[in-house]
């Protein structure tokens, strides 16, 4: 069991007030707050360890490189990847997906090929594929969802018959919290010869992820949602696949020999995909964040958030005219809802002076909102540091806001 009071004491930002009220931060799905361990790791690096990595003969550079590469190993262990060079540092999940679409996509996707997405993808897992499809004259197809916000099985099977070259889907929906059975869909897609990319942004912060067990080709996540810093993220890719892919960005770090006469040969994995000076402090602090999560216990974090989500749904269901968007059987703690006759933006605006931070709007998922015929939702999402008292405050706040707005 997780001890919320102990967890909270490690998050300095939760001590601050917002508009004269204690801050109630329920926007974890947009970005997680940071524990002292992560803040200190970044500070410690800047105070005592900073030098450029992989290039200095001097001891400081060596120590910085060791810490940087140790963090890569932490990510490998966290995802249970087979090889450390399968872990590529990126600027975030968006950057990782763009890397795959620009490197793998531009060499593998031909005119007329199908790229299969789902209705519940974040824009970051839609737009890079649209750019690629436009350039390569390929076609985007979409797996639809059922009323509960789960992937429509029959439609998925049907779309696989189109022989997509790639299936890109989220592990967990950011707007609704639906947990997709990614193992099953990976198997099904690979059985017809498709490559599979999984967007794990909303999964890694809440559950154990095992890429070897999933056997997916690519898996991406961003650091800032897993209690780590912004500007750092991860692309996992199978070694043989990454080895076969050309570099995307050129620059320092990613080369073997550069010659203006004979051309340039590239470094091996993982550096081939890491041109330029990386976000060293971010990578190191991300490693610390993942260790911090493991220390608390991934299962306990997930269970705690599920409890908060269930309680929020139980209390909010009493609000007249409130409808939940996303009622999948398997869900994370995310609670997304609309209220009849009330605009989500108005609810969010009124919760703000009460110190309650929720997300309102389309959650970077306009095709999903279009599907439900709504302008957006109010979304409360939870992390390890949230409490049942905060859920009570949310419910009371929503009731009050709705009373004022009607």
């Amino acid at each position, binding site marked *: 069991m997780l001890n919320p009071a102990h967890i909270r004491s490690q998050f300095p930002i939760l001590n601050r007030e917002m*508009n004269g009220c204690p801050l109630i931060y329920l926007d974890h799905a947009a970005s997680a707050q940071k524990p002292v361990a992560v803040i200190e790791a970044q500070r410690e690096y800047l105070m005592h360890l900073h030098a450029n990595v992989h290039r200095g003969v001097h001891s400081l550079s060596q120590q910085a490189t060791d810490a940087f590469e140790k963090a890569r190993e932490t990510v490998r262990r966290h995802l249970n990847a087979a090889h450390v060079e399968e872990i590529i540092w990126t600027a975030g999940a968006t950057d990782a997906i763009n890397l795959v679409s620009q490197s793998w996509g531009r060499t593998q996707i031909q005119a007329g090929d199908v790229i299969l997405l789902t209705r519940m993808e974040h824009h970051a897992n839609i737009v890079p594929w649209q750019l690629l499809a436009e350039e390569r004259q390929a076609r985007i197809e979409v797996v639809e969802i059922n009323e509960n916000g789960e992937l429509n099985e029959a439609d998925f099977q049907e779309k696989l018959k189109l022989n997509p070259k790639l299936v890109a889907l989220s592990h967990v929906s950011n707007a609704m919290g639906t947990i997709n059975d990614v193992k099953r869909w990976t198997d099904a897609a690979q059985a017809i010869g498709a490559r599979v990319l999984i967007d794990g942004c909303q999964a890694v912060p809440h559950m154990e992820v095992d890429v070897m067990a999933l056997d997916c080709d690519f898996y991406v996540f961003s650091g800032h949602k897993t209690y780590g810093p912004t500007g750092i993220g991860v692309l996992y890719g199978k070694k043989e696949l990454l080895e076969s892919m050309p570099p995307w960005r050129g620059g320092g770090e990613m080369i073997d020999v550069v010659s203006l006469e004979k051309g340039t040969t590239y470094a091996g994995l993982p550096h081939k995909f890491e041109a330029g000076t990386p976000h060293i402090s971010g990578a190191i602090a991300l490693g610390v964040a993942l260790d911090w999560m493991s220390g608390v216990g991934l299962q306990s974090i997930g269970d705690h958030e599920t409890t908060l989500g269930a309680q929020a749904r139980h209390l909010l269901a009493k609000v007249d005219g409130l409808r939940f968007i996303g009622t999948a059987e398997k869900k994370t703690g995310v609670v997304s809802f609309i209220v009849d006759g*009330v*605009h*989500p*933006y*108005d609810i969010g*605006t*009124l919760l703000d*002076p009460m110190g309650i931070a929720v997300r*309102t*709007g*389309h959650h970077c998922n306009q095709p999903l909102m279009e599907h439900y015929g709504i*302008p*957006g939702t109010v979304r409360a999402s939870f992390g390890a540091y949230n409490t049942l008292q905060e859920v009570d405050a949310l419910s009371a706040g929503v009731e009050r806001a709705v009373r*004022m*707005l009607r």
Partner: protein
Amino acid sequence: MSDSNQLLQQRQEEIVEEFAFFEDWMEKYEYLIELGKELSPLEEADRTDENIIRGCQSRVWLAAKKSPEGLLEFRADSDAIITRGLVALVIRALDQLSPEVVSGADLWFVQRIGLDTHLSPTRANGLLAMVQQMKHYGIAFQAR
């Protein structure tokens, strides 16, 4: 000082006086919601794509015409009620003024009543874009 400009300053002072009574944010929002409910809705015919101003979250519609006296008449609406309240305030300040005054209007009342965050580009409620559009109408109608 033109009549229109005098009116604009007068109206803004009135709004600031009204808001001086409110002690906290919730009271301000209650009043904005009231104003939003009182604002007569835009006719369906005016809720066109041409008149829409897209915020990221709430949508605003704005219609403008010139009165026989040469003044600008605005009508506007939003799908979010608090945004409608803010729209009502802006219209109250700028309606029935000369195009010259509208195009150069300084809406200082917004900051004085503490609602400037609602008019910031990061707020994504379409309000800032609406004010800019009203000023553009001011410029366009001067030319006619």
